[in-house]
Structure formats: structure tokens, C-alpha cells
């Protein structure tokens, strides 16, 4: 009776949320497709009444889509929040111990959750366009609704011609395959039999959230980043609408504030990721030119190019073609980066591990990419000749000429980054096996130091130029003073700042110096332009403010990276000096309780504490400045063998100063297994004054004391206590005094050993002989030595970077508000 088997009831399952979830997933798929169709009809309809009807219908569908996405969100959150582990998503990404604030983080830890987040932002942005989009609503929303449909296919999990389309977040644990090989959950312990009806009672807890993701950044970084991702569809959709409806000029104006918005959101999202990496992950910095980072940086660079060409177009009628290209490409690269980071194609090249979802996912995401962007590029090529342009050449003294060059530099820098990042794609396509170069970061850095120089200089002076042409005398009069101030400031900073980046060539260091000077120039000229050019009217100063911020970002990057120091340099090892020609390593071992010399600090690993709330262990590392004696405590932490997984996951801790951060994290710890003591005591016969050698020094017996008149309640009658004070002379030059004791209490001998941690030494008074000699037990053991290995950095002026990001975002926002106001 197969039918009955299928109908087998499982106890304890809550199937309703999942059924509702499935319903909304299907609804969202259908509604988004219907909305894009209805909007398409509305956009192509010339009859006003028909158009209005189609638009009304489309809005209805889009609102149904929005309701679906929000419902999916709510249901999935309900499942996670109530620990309904019969659902694979909850089981996989959460557990009962998780704090409330991280429940959201588990939501977007998974592939499906992050696609839903992306969809959610599309909905919000779509509603804004429905409300204020006017004539643009129909064509723009038809593109966005179609993008929504593509995203919706990512979470359907429906089989279509034998091909599973996306993965469904509401799949049950028992349907996901993870229980298939668990005999204990099956009838008769046979995995070929169906699951036991009460299988769920054995699934007591979920897998939990990835340990390193249990961080407040994980709660806020993805939503902001995905807002940035999602918002790039809007400039794209405007460009497509312009091409499609043959409004080749009109789209630029409404697209500009959206492009600004997108650049601000994506930029903040990226830098939040950088701040997270800096603050909580042990990558040793905020930026590693990792493919994941590059993949989201490239669309941002192109967005910024797009902002500038749109501005040029607005003021001069030039650069419209470039504006089209950049608007289309920034969205294209968002999709391409999704392809890179989610299909597992990056493999070995990233510090992040990637999942291979298999070929179907691969094809799916490529289809998604092609179907959305290919028609747009085809339209662009067809319409290219009819896009308005100005034949006459730009003046050298015009603002637009230099702005355009800046945009080009940004654009090409983006192409170079994505080109290098795509090496694994190249390998896959051409079947080659090319590996990244030895110094990949240096390659990126050495290119971008020039990009920084060019962009900083251009952003510095081009504001002082007027569109279409500038009188030379006017330009020099205005820019002379700020240039002079910048030159002096740069000279002072370079002279006193001692930015000596000797890790690479002298030429590279010189480039860094030039770039530092140029970013100072950008900061000062743009800041003074707010007063001299705009008379302090902040309303119009968005561009200048953003440029000041960007200059600060550049300066912060150059100084913090150029002067970043590893301060945990291990020059000596602890006991054994390095052999000749060996480089000092970057990790330093700290034995518990032992003061170590590290640069301008003495540092001590004091203790560790198993945190009561979570599975992480905090290590107290005390820093003491040698000169001033000032102390502070850093508490880097690690998850040790958490969740039954071997290994160490470390989160750094940092001490923030105005000028620099001291940053430390744990790179290894003593093996807890080896802390089990296996060494034996060796017994030696000693008289007063005798010397005994051990592996790292010697000890001298000082005296043998006998104590009488002992408290009777502890020692009983005739209790004795012997003490054998010893002086220990270590090879390191240290001397120690120890006193092992032997008591006879209530007829029993009790030995009280003494320990010198730093020397790995335990001494035990075993017997006091009648001839004034003793039997001394000595044990040398690694077991008593608890240590951690740390890596510590000094990051100077990191605040410039974070401050710069903030100011840039503020500047872009000012511009955006200004551009929206101009509309009315």
C-alpha cells in the first residue's frame, strides 16, 4: 500500500507555515511575471485609457508581489524564531542557543534568504517609483518587475523539465536529503525504510549560525549591501526605458538621483563589510582585494563614473552615450559578481569558501544575467547612432573634459579589477590552469596608487573649472591659494609622517608619497571650493563634500596601509634563537603569566575565560607601554573546536587611539590535549647547598626547615611539616625561589609541590632523610605551559578612512536631495 506510506503522518511537524510559504513563493513568481507583462503592455500602449488600465493592473500585481515577498520574509522568520527544525532552513542556519538579534543574521546567511532580501529591496524601490515615477513608471517598472521575476525563480525549487529551478527555503528537513543516511531516524534502523513517525523528537537542535557570523555587523551589513545591489537596477531600468521608448535624452535627469542613491548605498554597504573584516575577522585588515570585495567594488566604480557622465550631460549635453553604457554596465556587473561569488567558480582564489550549487545553478544564474542584460545591450547598439552627442571638441579648460577623464579612469580601473578577478572564469572557459601571481595584492595596489593619484588631482582642480571653458586667470586666482596650502600640508605630513613603505620597491614608495600629496590636495581644494566657489552654500556643495570625503578615504587607505606595522614580530623565539638567515616571523608566542617584550610594549597573556553565554573563549592580553608604564587590556577571542569542529576561529580586539589602532588576534593556542600531563618526576638525592641541573638552568637547595607546633585540628598529634627552599637560576638570567613542602598529617604524608610556570618546572619534596638530605622530585613538563600565539598590528590613522567614508556618503546624499529638488 504505497499510498499509505506516502500519507504517513509525522508527529510534531508544523506544516502550515511551509504550505503558506510555498503558496507565496508561487504567487510572487506569477505576480512578478504578470506585473512585468502588464507594465510592458502599459508602456507600449498609446491609447491613454488602455494604458491606464494596464498600469492599474500592473500595480495590482506588483503590490501582490510585494505582499508575497513580505509574507515569505515573515513566515521564514517565524520558522526560524520558533525553532521549527522540521524546516531545513531553520535547522541549517539556526539553533536554540542563538540570541534574538542573530535570528535575522541566520535569515540571510543562506543563499535563499539573501535573494529574498534583494527581492525585498526591489519591492520597496518599486513602490517608490510607482508613487513618484510618473511617465517613467511603466517602462522602468516593467524592467524591475522582470528582474523580480528572475530573482523569484532563484527560490522556487520547482522541477522544470528535470531541472530544479532555484532552491526553496521552505523545504522540509526530511525532504532535503540530510536525514537519508541517518539510520537512527528510520524505521528498523534501515535507511531504505521511511522515517519514523516521531523522527522529529530526535532532531533537538539546529546546526546554528556560523560562528564568525555571530556579530552585529552580520545583522546590518547584508541589508545595506543588498540595498546597494538592488538599487543598481533603477539606473539600469531608466537607461533601458530611455532606449526602448526612444527617450534617449530624457531618462538622464530622473536617473541621476537614483544613481547617486545607488552609489551611496553600495559604497556604505561595501565599507561596512570592510569595517566588519577589520574589526571582527582575522584577515588582518579591512581590504584584501578578495574576489568577493572586488566583485562589489567594480559596480560601484562604474556607478561613480555614471554619476559624473550624467552630470556632464546635464550641463553640457555631452557624454550621453557613456552615461548609457555606465548605467547598463553597473547592473551587469552586479549580476556578474553574483555569478562569480555564488557559483563556486572562484574556488581556490578567495579566502571565502564558496559553495558549488552544481551545474543547474550555474546555468540558471548565467541565464538570469543574459536574459536581463543582453536585450539592453542590443538596444544600446541599435540606438547608438541616434543617441544625441556633440561633435565639437571639449575645451581643455572645461570642467567636462577632465570629469570625463576621471570617469574613464574609474571605469578602466573597474575593468582591470574584474579582469584579474575573473581569472578562474578564464581558466574554466579556456581549460587553462593559470594560478594567480605571487603578489596579487601588490599588483592591485601598485595599479591603484596611480588611479588614486589621477583621480585625486582631477577631483581637486576640476571643480574650479567651469563647464564649457574657463578663463585662465580666473582659474589660477581661485585655485592658487588652496594649492599652496595643500603643498605645504603635504610636505609637512610627508616629512614628519615618516611613511616608509619598504616592503616593496622604492618606486612604489615614491608613488605612495605622491598619492598622499595628491589626496591632501583633493581634500584642501575641495574644502576651500565650498567657500570660495559656492559661498559656503552647503546645499549645492554635495559634490565638493563627497570629494573631500573621498580624498580622506584615499589618504586613510594610503597611510593606514603604507604605515601598517606588524608589531608582534618574533625576533628571538622564546628559548631558541632563530638560525641564521631566518626571517623573524609575524607571530609571537605568549606563555601564560610570562611577560614578553614586543616593540614598545611588554605584553602578558594573563588568563582566558570561557564565556558563560557563548562558546567563545576570551584571552586577556595585557599591554604595558615600556616608556610610560600605561597599561591596557585587550581581549581577542576564539571559538575553539566549536560545534564539534576542530580548529580555531578568532576574532580580534583592538585598542583605538586617535592616531592609530593596536590590533591583536589569536593565531594558535596550546593544544588542550597536550595539557594532559605525561611527564614523570625524577627523584634526586640532595644535601643543603647541592646543585641540581635541569634542561634550562640549575637549582640550589638552600635549607631544610622543620616546622613544629602545628595546628592539631589539621595535622593531628605528632604532625610534621618540612620545607625545602630552593633557588633556581634559569639560563634566561631569571632567578626564582620556590618552596616545596612535605607534611605528615594525621599519619599520612602529604606533599605540596611548587611550580615555576615560566620554566615548565614542578618541584616536589618527596622525603626528608635523617642525614639532613632530601629526595627531590623534579618534573619538566610542557603540560603546565599554556600559551597562545598572537599576531598584532598597528594601523595608523584608520579613522581617516571611516570618517572619509561617512563624509563621502553625506556629500552624495546632499547631491541627491539637490537633484531630486531640481526636478520640481
Amino acid at each position, binding site marked *: 500500500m504505497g499510498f499509505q506510506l506516502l500519507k504517513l503522518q509525522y508527529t510534531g511537524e508544523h506544516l502550515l507555515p511551509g504550505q503558506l510559504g510555498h503558496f507565496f513563493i508561487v504567487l510572487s513568481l506569477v505576480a512578478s511575471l504578470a506585473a512585468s507583462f502588464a507594465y510592458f503592455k502599459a508602456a507600449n500602449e498609446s491609447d491613454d485609457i488602455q494604458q491606464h488600465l494596464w498600469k492599474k493592473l500592473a500595480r495590482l500585481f506588483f503590490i501582490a508581489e510585494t505582499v508575497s515577498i513580505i509574507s515569505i520574509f515573515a513566515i521564514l522568520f517565524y520558522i526560524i524564531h520558533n525553532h521549527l527544525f522540521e524546516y531545513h532552513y531553520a535547522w541549517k542556519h539556526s539553533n536554540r542557543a542563538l540570541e534574538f538579534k542573530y535570528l535575522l543574521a541566520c535569515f540571510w546567511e543562506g543563499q535563499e534568504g539573501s535573494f529574498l532580501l534583494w527581492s525585498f529591496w526591489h519591492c520597496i524601490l518599486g513602490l517608490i517609483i510607482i508613487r513618484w515615477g510618473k511617465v517613467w513608471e511603466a517602462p522602468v517598472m516593467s524592467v524591475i518587475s522582470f528582474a523580480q521575476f528572475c530573482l523569484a525563480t532563484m527560490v522556487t525549487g520547482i522541477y522544470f523539465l528535470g531541472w530544479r529551478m532555484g532552491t526553496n527555503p521552505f*523545504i522540509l528537513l526530511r525532504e532535503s536529503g540530510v536525514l537519508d543516511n541517518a539510520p537512527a531516524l528510520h524505521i528498523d534502523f534501515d535507511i531504505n525504510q521511511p522515517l519514523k513517525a516521531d523522527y522529529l523528537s530526535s532532531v533537538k537542535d539546529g546546526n546554528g549560525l556560523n560562528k564568525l557570523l555571530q556579530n552585529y555587523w*552580520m545583522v546590518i551589513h*547584508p541589508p545595506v549591501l543588498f540595498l546597494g545591489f538592488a538599487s543598481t537596477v533603477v539606473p539600469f531600468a531608466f537607461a533601458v526605458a530611455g532606449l526602448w521608448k526612444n527617450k534617449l535624452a530624457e531618462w538622464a535627469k530622473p536617473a541621476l538621483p537614483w544613481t547617486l542613491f545607488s552609489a551611496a548605498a553600495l559604497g556604505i554597504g561595501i565599507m561596512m563589510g570592510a569595517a566588519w573584516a577589520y574589526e571582527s575577522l582575522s584577515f588582518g585588515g579591512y581590504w584584501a582585494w578578495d574576489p568577493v570585495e572586488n566583485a562589489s567594488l567594480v559596480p560601484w566604480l562604474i556607478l561613480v563614473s555614471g554619476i559624473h557622465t550624467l552630470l556632464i550631460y546635464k550641463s553640457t549635453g555631452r557624454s550621453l552615450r557613456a552615461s548609457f553604457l555606465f548605467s547598463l554596465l553597473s547592473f551587469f556587473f552586479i549580476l556578474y559578481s553574483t555569478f562569480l561569488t555564488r557559483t563556486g567558480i572562484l574556488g581556490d582564489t578567495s579566502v571565502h569558501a564558496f559553495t558549488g550549487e552544481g551545474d543547474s545553478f550555474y546555468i540558471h544564474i548565467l541565464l538570469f544575467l543574459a536574459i536581463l542584460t543582453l536585450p539592453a545591450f542590443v538596444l544600446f547598439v541599435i540606438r547608438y547612432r541616434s543617441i544625441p552627442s556633440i561633435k565639437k571638441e571639449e575645451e581643455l579648460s572645461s570642467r567636462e573634459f577632465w570629469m570625463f*577623464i576621471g570617469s574613464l579612469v574609474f571605469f*578602466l580601473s573597474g575593468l582591470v579589477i574584474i579582469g*584579474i578577478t575573473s581569472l578562474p572564469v578564464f581558466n574554466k572557459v579556456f581549460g587553462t590552469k593559470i594560478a594567480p*601571481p605571487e603578489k596579487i595584492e601588490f599588483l592591485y595596489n601598485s595599479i591603484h596608487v596611480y588611479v588614486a593619484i589621477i583621480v585625486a588631482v582631477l577631483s581637486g582642480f576640476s571643480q574650479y573649472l567651469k563647464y564649457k571653458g574657463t578663463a585662465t586667470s580666473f582659474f589660477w586666482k581661485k585655485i592658487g591659494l588652496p594649492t599652496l596650502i595643500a603643498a605645504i600640508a603635504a610636505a609637512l605630513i610627508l616629512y614628519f609622517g615618516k611613511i616608509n613603505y619598504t616592503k616593496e620597491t622604492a618606486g612604489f614608495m615614491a608613488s605612495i608619497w605622491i598619492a598622499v600629496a595628491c589626496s591632501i590636495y583633493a581634500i584642501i581644494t575641495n574644502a576651500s571650493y565650498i567657500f570660495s566657489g559656492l559661498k559656503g552654500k552647503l546645499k549645492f556643495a554635495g559634490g565638493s563634500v563627497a570629494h573631500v570625503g573621498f580624498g580622506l578615504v584615499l589618504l586613510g587607505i594610503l597611510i593606514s596601509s603604507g604605515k601598517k606595522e606588524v608589531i608582534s614580530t618574533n625576533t628571538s623565539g622564546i628559548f631558541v634563537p632563530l638560525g641564521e638567515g631566518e626571517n623573524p616571523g609575524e607571530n609571537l608566542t605568549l*606563555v601564560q603569566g610570562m611577560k614578553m617584550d614586543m616593540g614598545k610594549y611588554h605584553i602578558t597573556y594573563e588568563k582566558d575565560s570561557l564565556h558563560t553565554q557563548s562558546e567563545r573563549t576570551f584571552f586577556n592580553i595585557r599591554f604595558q607601554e615600556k616608556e610610560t608604564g600605561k597599561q591596557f587590556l585587550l581581549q581577542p577571542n576564539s571559538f575553539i573546536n566549536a560545534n564539534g569542529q576542530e580548529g580555531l576561529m578568532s576574532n580580534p580586539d583592538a585598542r583605538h587611539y586617535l592616531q592609530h589602532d593596536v590590533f591583536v588576534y589569536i593565531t*594558535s593556542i596550546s593544544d588542550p590535549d597536550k595539557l594532559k600531563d605525561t611527564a614523570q618526576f625524577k627523584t634526586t638525592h640532595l644535601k643543603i647547598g647541592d646543585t641540581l641541573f635541569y634542561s634550562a638552568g640549575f637549582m640550589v637547595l638552600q635549607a631544610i626547615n622543620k616546622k613544629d607546633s602545628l595546628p592539631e585540628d589539621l595535622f593531628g598529634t605528632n604532625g610534621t611539616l618540612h620545607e625545602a627552599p630552593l633557588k633556581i637560576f634559569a639560563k634566561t638570567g631569571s632567578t626564582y625561589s620556590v618552596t616545596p613542602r612535605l607534611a605528615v598529617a594525621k599519619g599520612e604524608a602529604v606533599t605540596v609541590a611548587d611550580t615555576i610556570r615560566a620554566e615548565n618546572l614542578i618541584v616536589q619534596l618527596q622525603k626528608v632523610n635523617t642525614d639532613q638530605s632530601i629526595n627531590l622530585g623534579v618534573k619538566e613538563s610542557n603540560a603546565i605551559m599554556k600559551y597562545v*600565539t598572537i599576531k598584532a598590528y598597528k594601523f595608523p590613522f584608520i579613522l581617516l578612512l571611516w570618517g572619509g567614508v561617512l563624509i563621502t556618503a553625506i556629500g552624495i546624499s546632499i547631491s541627491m536631495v539637490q537633484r531630486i529638488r531640481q526636478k520640481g
Partner: protein
Amino acid sequence: MKKIHIVLLVIIAAAIAVLITFMKTTSTYDSIDMAVAKPGKFVHLMAKLDKAAPIEYDAVKNPNYLVFTAKDSTGSVKVVYHNVMPPNFEMSDKLVLKGKYENGLFECKDIQTKCPSKYKDAEEKGLTHPGTAKTNK
């Protein structure tokens, strides 16, 4: 020719130069015999940890000195790594060793470890980028 065209050419030439430089500096994925055959050249050595051979590492003496033997079907080589032993090193299944072979030793700059259940461990170690975690199986 317009000024902007000249600029365009210069910038594109620079970009191409960069990409060519990049292609020239790229390295290769090699087996042990191939890495040994080109001493002094930076390679990505794909090998396994020889668990039968001793692993020399004492964090107390020197945390930046790890010596072990890597092997594959083409042979084995002694590897020196001047850094801390990676957390899951001893139980690793596959290693990607970035460095060069010189004077009978493979001087390793960077180690990537792959664990037996490759994906799972990486994920549990928090190396998965959020949003990319795989869901089914």
C-alpha cells in the same frame, strides 16, 4: 584626432599593459615533480600532507617555523613555512601550497587547507561568505 581620443588611447594602452603584466606574473598549479623541476619559480603546489612523516612545530620555541612533508602521486617534498601552523592543518586532506622550490626545500609562503568534507568544514570555520551558504546536501 580629438584630445579625448588620445586620452582614451593612453588609458586603454595602460589598461592593456596592466593586464599583460598580470598575465606574465601569473603562476601555475603544479604537482610536486613539476614544482621541483622549476626551482626558484613561484607555483601553487597541489599536494597532500604526508601524515606518516613527522611534523615539526613547536609554538613555544618558535611559532613561525613549521616543517612537514607534502606528497602526491609524483613524489614528496619537505616544506618549510614561516608562519603559524594553520588551525586544521593536521587533519587536512588536500593542501594548496604557494611558494617555490629551492635547495631541496619547498619554501612556502601561504597554505590553504582543504578538509575531508571540504565544504562543510570551511563553512563551519566561518570562511563562507554570508549569503553564499549552500542549503541542500
